[in-house]
């Protein structure tokens, strides 16, 4: 951890966003993670995405559980809301928060341990509900915070720094989400911001559950030879199948996309996601086809990245439940709490 704060100076040539804020205005406190941790790069990518989208800091809610990854909301957008919950319980806390105030943009930052080990039950139910949030997993294959034990995302044969290689099947967040009907599924790498930032922007603007599973190496406990979540291994087996660009509402889609390969998909808020396949075989709108492709590549040892699945048509939690449009936090008390008599009436309908 550094002793000095990041100096309060900036490059005078840096741009401002639609709110007149600079990227530096979206920073948090200086990270206390190990130098070189992939999570810090993800933080930087989140800052860039939120800045470029021009999200008002007070309209953002940062949710997390426990782990090095779950500490990172402290390192971006200091002026946003935040809830650092219990290990593996971020999805339920976010569900509650979102139920109460559907107007905020929710970003959950979790780890592979937090989401796939202790919190896997919460993780899958948030997907089933199609909770409207951007769900980031900073995936390093270990419990970084507790000194590097394998997590549920560790690959078979991956070697720890000391001790025996992992023998158990990994839980793959992407195929899990695909099988449960998540509507925006992406995988990326902390070391590839060019790919990661647009993926995060799309995820933040997507209506429904958006998963961004990010290989984010733990330099201290899982960056050695034989690890399948190291910087070197990830770079070697990295396989980008589909590029995406996020184009905000009202911005012209550049001619470069008219090449037949490009698939523009309009989102709920009028923005557009343009997918450009790198591998022609890949079908990002078919669950069955994507699943097959991902499995094959996984068996070949490749790490498939990009916006792997997108479905803009499914209803998210509030729509499914037919909730009022106004956030509950803004409803007048007599509407929110109509009284005992109303409750009795309601109950009598089910008798």
């Amino acid at each position, binding site marked *: 951890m550094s002793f*000095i704060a990041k100096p309060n*100076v900036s490059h005078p040539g840096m741009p401002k966003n639609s709110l007149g804020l600079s990227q530096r205005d979206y920073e948090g406190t200086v990270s206390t993670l190990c130098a070189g941790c992939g999570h810090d*790069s993800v933080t930087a990518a989140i800052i860039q995405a939120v800045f470029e989208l021009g999200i008002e800091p007070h309209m953002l809610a940062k949710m997390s559980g426990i782990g090095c990854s779950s500490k990172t909301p402290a390192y971006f957008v200091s002026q946003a809301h935040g809830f650092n919950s219990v290990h593996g319980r971020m999805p339920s806390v976010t569900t509650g928060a979102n139920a109460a105030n559907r107007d905020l943009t929710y970003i959950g930052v979790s780890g592979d341990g937090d989401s796939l080990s202790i919190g896997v039950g919460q993780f899958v139910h948030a997907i089933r509900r199609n909770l409207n949030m951007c769900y980031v997993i900073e995936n390093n294959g270990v419990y970084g915070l507790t000194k590097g034990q394998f997590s549920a995302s560790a690959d078979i044969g991956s070697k720890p720094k000391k001790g025996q290689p992992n023998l158990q099947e990994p839980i793959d967040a992407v195929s899990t989400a695909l099988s449960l009907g998540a509507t925006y599924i992406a995988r990326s790498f902390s070391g590839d911001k060019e790919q990661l930032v647009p993926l995060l922007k799309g995820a933040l603007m997507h209506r429904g559950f958006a998963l961004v599973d990010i290989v984010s190496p733990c330099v201290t406990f899982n960056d050695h030879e034989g690890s399948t979540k190291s910087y070197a291994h990830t770079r070697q087996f990295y396989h980008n199948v589909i590029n995406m660009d996020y184009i905000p509402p009202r911005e012209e889609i550049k001619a470069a996309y008219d090449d037949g390969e490009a698939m523009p998909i309009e989102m709920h808020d009028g923005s557009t996601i343009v997918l450009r396949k790198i591998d022609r075989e890949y079908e990002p709108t078919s669950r069955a086809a994507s699943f097959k492709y991902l499995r094959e590549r996984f068996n070949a040892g490749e790490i498939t990245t990009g916006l792997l699945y997108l479905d803009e048509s499914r209803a998210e939690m509030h729509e499914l439940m037919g909730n009022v449009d106004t956030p509950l936090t803004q409803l007048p008390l007599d509407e929110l709490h109509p009284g005992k008599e109303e409750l009795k009436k309601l109950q009598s309908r089910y008798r």
Partner: protein
Amino acid sequence: MKPTDTSNPEYFHQVVDCQFGCPAHTDVPAYIRMIAQGEFSDAYMENRKSNVFPGILGRVCDRPCEPACRRGRVEEKPVAICRLKRVAADHRDDITSRLPKAPATSNGKKVALIGAGCASLTVANDLAPLGYEVTIFEALDTTGGLMRTNIPQFRLPPKVLDEEIGYILDMGVDLKTNHPIESLKGLLTEGYDAVFVGTGAPRGKNLEIPGRYDSDRIHIGIDWLESVAFEHTKEIGKKVLIIGVGNTAMDCCRTSLRIGAEDVKVMARKPRGFFKASDWELEDAEEENVEILINHSPKEFVIEDGKLVGMKFELMEYKVDDNGRIDRGTVTGEKIIPCDDVVLAIGQDNAFPWIERDIGIEFDNWDCPVVDETTMMCAIDGVFFGGDSAFGPKNIIWAVEHGHQAAISMHRYCQGEDIADRLPRGMNLASQKMGMHEWSFSNDYDPASRRIMPHVDLKKRFKKLDIEVELGFTAEQAIQEVERCLNCDIQTVFSADLCIECDACIDICPVNCLTITANGDEDDLRSRLSAPAENHEQPLYVSADLPHTSRVMVKDEDLCVHCSLCAERCPTGAWDMQKSTLLVPYAQDELAEEQSTSAAST
């Protein structure tokens, strides 16, 4: 781009903007850190090594380092480098024991220096400790040249001059005052092994317009300032016009106010932004309520009954193009401005009436001798020039640098060596890491703004000519100001083979200096960096190919605040903070080098 060759001393040298901007390569960040630690004498000696006159220059240096200072790009104002130099001088202890000394015996070589200005004095400073018998011939009865005769005492007290010139003369220099050299040819027959011409640019430019010779109240600026300095002139009329708006003009107007003028106008031909005077000299003059009138081009002196009553000007209008160039202007009218005296401060020329034109020295169209810019030697072997005499009027710090270079040449010449084959500049690099996140220097960015020099009260300062206006920084101001320095000599040094491309440095850098990207040519790279890299005067530091992806690490040096965070966040130590020390050779080092090679060969 090819990987940057950091083994070339000039690479890291140019990152230290102030030192690179200083003609004498003063190690500014090093002396600022010494001041920060209260080591004023060390800071003084560090300065003296390169610029010889820290007390003088700490007051009146032209300070090319300041516009160059990186702090002025990161925020509005540069570090007050010059003021801090004065802090070192003001607070030093007695340093006489640390000064260079002449050896007990001479080396048998005699050199003659003409003129006792800063150029000659620097040559003496460098050659006397090597055993040379140094003789200085000076036309006036005192030393210092323009520093004493033209820079007014309210900017540069004589005591400061005497002290620092004394340090040099006390090494056994033979000073012959009241001894103008009237023939170079003659001097060359007197058996000196080498001769240095440090006679300055002594002729003030004249303004040949109607009425010029019809009054004795029209003065040439540098002559008039000299006559005030020697107390031959003790007063001036109430209304004074100064023609020209360079630094000489600023001294003339402020001097006028101290010897009787009440209404002083500086007449500028061009608009603001095209003035020659330094901003701080303009500010100081305007603080004293000097009025600066722009777009007035002198036409004639108005004489009535044999008496100067005013001056007629053409009123000008100019167009400035997109590149900031100004046209020749058009005349829109005329105006007479009443006055009692006019001082002409429109520049200086070189003049060498005492150098015969048939002895082999070439002169150019401006009557300047043709002098080699590296060796300072002219067409006659063994005759060297420096200071204003060499390439026309410059300033003190340039004269000092010329003196250093001439001294090296004179030494090599006297030893029968090739004067072009001089020692090159060198560079030392040393890591400043003390612990995980600890550095040997104060790496935290201090947002303090530039401290303002306190001045003597406006009511008091005009009472006498020699009341020094600037009071010097207080202790509190000095402490604040030193922290503004960004330690640009503590370099970010990169080892490509250690980099795992985790982006940690890129993410933490407050000013977005760093980028990992595919290599390309310079223009292409500049267009693809984390932040706009439009300052082409500042280099890109490009690494070798990175091991994982064969991309390159590129650092735009322009705005780096040397905060060390890149090195702190790097998990592998690929970035390190290393202090660069530029090794500038002086005549002394040439001697040491000769002695060590001759010792090695015996």
